[in-house]
């Protein structure tokens, strides 16, 4: 948008919002949790933590879809790849460790594993190569699920089936609130998940948990204003659901996308890597589309999975309990070049983002 991008990055506005944040920061520590890899990217890339006062902490919740994908789902895809089925999936998924090996390792052992930009590409490739069998490993939150739903409802080719690993964000946010020693004083809700689901599903947080909740966009100013809006609620001792990202998020959300999700999927409990099983947090294909369900089409029973490598603290990083440098493996045994945990693999993983920005310790403002 010509001319607008510069206004969205206006330094004088940033200065004013940071001044307000400093004025509103309470004398005691408040901790705001976001649940989106892109929020973490914005916060780290623009060094926003270093601009915040000592008493305002921002932690990263489980907002990286690749990181929360269970190892046994990767194992299923690996087993298919080694059996001669071509596995199609998103870029950073192929490097994520399964219990033993990653999809990239499976490719090195002769498996056909290909990276696609989206599910639309998977459908096109399957049509172009009708003699081969394809599986699309469908990961992602509510933002990605409508695209998978749409392709399934449109009748994909017979040689394409799906491993559905879509997960839902509000149930995992609710889980975080049940973790006793994780003090959260407000949620920064994810901008594009909310573009799809709307504001409505977050009502539960202020209403049932008295948790201030602000939906924010991905520009640095979006995040800073989100923090300011949360601080204001904290200082007023109020809990409200507010929307900073009004240019994209509405109360109802993208109703068409929601309808597609409901037509293709049922909601069920689902396993999250490092977090365990969470009620009503996963999507499964409706019975009428079982012909496209890779779990029914192929015999892909896998053994007991290993969700975390020894010493890896991904499960604590993912809920914001610790920051990456507090993990003994961070930038020692676990680096972007040789990752041990999913958080170091995915571009949306907190460890990967911190590593690539050279963040080695806790960032604090020098006030």
């Amino acid at each position, binding site marked *: 948008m010509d001319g607008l991008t510069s*206004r969205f990055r206006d330094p004088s506005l940033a200065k004013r919002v940071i001044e307000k944040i400093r004025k*509103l920061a309470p004398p005691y520590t408040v901790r705001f949790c976001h649940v989106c*890899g892109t929020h973490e990217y914005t916060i780290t890339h623009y060094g926003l933590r270093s601009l915040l006062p000592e008493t305002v902490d921002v932690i990263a919740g489980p907002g990286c879809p690749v990181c929360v994908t269970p190892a046994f789902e990767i194992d299923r895809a690996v087993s298919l790849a080694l059996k001669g089925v071509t596995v199609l999936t998103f870029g950073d998924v192929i490097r994520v460790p399964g219990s033993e090996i990653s999809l990239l390792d499976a490719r090195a052992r002769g498996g056909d594993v290909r990276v696609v930009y989206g*599910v639309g590409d998977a459908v096109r490739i399957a049509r172009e190569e009708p003699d081969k069998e394809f599986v699309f490993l469908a990961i992602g939150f509510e933002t990605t699920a409508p*695209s998978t739903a749409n392709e399934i409802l449109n009748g994909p080719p017979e040689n394409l089936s799906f491993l559905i690993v879509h997960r839902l964000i509000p149930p995992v946010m609710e889980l975080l609130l049940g973790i006793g020693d994780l003090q959260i004083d407000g949620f920064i809700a994810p901008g*594009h998940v909310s573009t799809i689901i709307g504001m409505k599903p977050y009502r539960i947080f202020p209403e049932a948990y008295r948790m201030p909740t602000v939906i924010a966009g991905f520009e640095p100013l979006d995040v800073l204003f989100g923090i300011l809006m949360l601080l204001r609620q904290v*200082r007023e001792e109020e809990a409200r659901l507010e929307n900073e990202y009004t*240019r994209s998020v509405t109360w109802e959300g993208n109703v068409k*996308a929601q309808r597609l999700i409901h037509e293709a999927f049922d909601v069920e409990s689902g396993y999250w890597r490092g977090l365990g099983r969470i009620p009503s947090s996963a999507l499964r294909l409706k019975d009428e589309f079982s012909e496209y369900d890779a779990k029914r089409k192929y015999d892909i029973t896998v053994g007991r999975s290993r969700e975390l490598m020894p010493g890896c603290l991904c499960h604590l990083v993912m809920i914001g309990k610790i920051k990456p440098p507090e993990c003994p493996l961070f930038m020692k045994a676990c680096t972007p070049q040789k990752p041990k945990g999913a958080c170091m693999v995915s571009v949306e993983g907190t460890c990967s983002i911190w590593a690539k920005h050279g963040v080695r310790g806790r960032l604090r403002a020098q006030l």
Partner: protein
Amino acid sequence: MCLAIPVKVLEIDGSTAKVDFGRGVVREVNITLVDAKVGDYVLVHAGYAIQVIDREAAEETVRLWNMILELSGPVRS
């Protein structure tokens, strides 16, 4: 990763649109989830447009930000 910057719709053919990601990168995306027309700006996620961002809504953001700054004066404590 969510792309924060809206991209411009150049051409539409059924449910597919060519969009300009800037720096000469033009890609096809699916526009089933939105009502987009040529010249609109859309947010794209994994090959699908998920929202149309009109200029007015974007301008509104800047107005909203200024309003929040004015509102965030003294607070009740």
